[in-house]
């Protein structure tokens, strides 16, 4: 089997394939352009790449021929307003394919935080998910690390593709049971030590950096929150705290929800590994204990940071990869026991994704 890994970076989209026991770079596109998210739709084989060109705004491209050519698609847009300070769409930070029973449906999450759907494989206009945009609680959301609020994560329930979960920095975790028409906050148990005491547990201002849902046990979620690691074992009725460990990315084993991986860092204004030791972290007992994984990672000092979309696990649950802002790309094929570098020389990595 050929394994396929797509790496979105500040300077382009890169593809790495494992063949004959070795990972090799086999493709590059958008060289020089910041790629903020990539999606390979398993239903159609189409590839989608979101760009943030800085000066010239956010863009979306699609390839229907495995990257031989790309076409620019219409971008989602926010409602027109006469208000001179009305928000404009600044970045796509989440791209997901709808369920197998929803042919053509593509979801996009953005900065500022909004969700959009397109029912024609990305062609034509996008529809704003108004049920989310019109939530009264949206006025409480604020940006974390960026001026804008950010919808960076969308989980689609493998049992029912109309059940959606989104995470917003800083706007909490929200669920829809009806494909986006209505939303309920699912942040109970999350807390933010950095907020004023009376807002510490406000569900609508939490900063989940990333959440993941277990494929085979979809009542189980993990959250790397600004304030630490949380998990839910009851389909988001509540979150439990697993310790004040800062980081951005999280991955959960597709079959065993007790196993999850992280890449820790020092929080807030520092954002480098603790003591200069660049390690991954793993729990195998549902968050009771965590172990540092360093075999194959730098033995000397390392100051890499792994962003929220830059850690992923494949469908077997054995292979994980992460890429860093320092341009290092590491992979393990035994759940983190051993790591090796695929390359040390990428542009800063925004996201990694197995297909």
């Amino acid at each position, binding site marked *: 089997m050929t394994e396929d890994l797509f790496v979105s970076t500040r300077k382009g989209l890169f593809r790495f394939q494992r063949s004959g026991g070795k990972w090799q770079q086999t493709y590059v596109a958008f060289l020089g352009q910041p790629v903020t998210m990539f999606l390979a739709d398993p239903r159609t084989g189409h590839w989608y790449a979101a760009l943030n*060109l*800085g*000066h*010239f*705004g956010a*863009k979306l491209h699609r390839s229907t021929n495995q990257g031989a050519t790309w076409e*620019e698609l219409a*971008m989602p*847009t*926010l409602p*027109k*307003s006469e208000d*001179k300070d*009305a*928000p*404009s*769409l600044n970045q796509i930070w989440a791209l997901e394919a709808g369920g197998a029973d929803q042919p053509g449906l593509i979801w996009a999450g953005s900065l500022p935080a909004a969700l959009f759907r397109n029912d024609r494989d990305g062609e034509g206009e996008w529809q704003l998910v108004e049920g989310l945009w019109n939530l009264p609680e949206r006025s409480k959301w604020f940006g974390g690390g960026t001026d804008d609020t950010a919808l960076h994560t969308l989980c689609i329930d493998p049992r029912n593709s109309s059940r959606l979960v989104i995470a917003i920095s800083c706007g909490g975790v929200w669920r829809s049971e009806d494909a986006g028409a209505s939303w309920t906050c699912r942040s109970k148990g999350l807390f933010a030590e950095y907020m004023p005491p009376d807002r510490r547990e406000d569900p609508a201002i939490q900063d989940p950096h990333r959440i993941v849902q277990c494929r085979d046990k979809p009542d189980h979620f993990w959250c790397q929150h600004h304030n630490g690691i949380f998990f839910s074992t009851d389909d988001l009725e509540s979150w439990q705290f697993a310790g004040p460990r800062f980081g951005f990315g999280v991955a959960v084993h597709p079959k065993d929800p007790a196993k999850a991986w992280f890449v820790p860092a020092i929080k807030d204004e520092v954002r480098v590994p603790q003591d200069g030791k660049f390690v991954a972290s793993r729990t195998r007992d549902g968050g009771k204990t965590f172990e540092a994984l360093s075999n194959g990672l730098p033995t000397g000092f390392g100051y890499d940071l792994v962003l929220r979309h830059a850690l992923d696990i494949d469908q077997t649950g054995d292979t994980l990869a992460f890429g860093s802002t320092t341009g290092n790309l590491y992979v393990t094929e035994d759940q983190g026991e051993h790591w090796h570098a695929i390359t040390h020389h990428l542009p800063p990595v925004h996201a990694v994704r197995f297909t």
Partner: protein
Amino acid sequence: MPTIHVTSHLRRIAPNGPTRVEAATLGAALDAYFEAAPRVRSYILDDQGRLRKHVAVFIDGELLVDKKDLGRRVAPESEIYVMQALSGG
């Protein structure tokens, strides 16, 4: 007819060379330009129709300081340059 020059950074999608347009304001000049080059619109304007924050416009050598001033008058002989603000490295 005012003339619009667009940064070479957009050469993949913009017409080659300067473009003459029929217009009396900056906004009308840009609209006329986008008629011929629709893909360029979203690169220059955001989804609210405002000039992007890091796009710089010069009219007859003068920087447009108020980026919301799309009603700014342009003369038939005006030269409009649409550029990206410079970034460091």
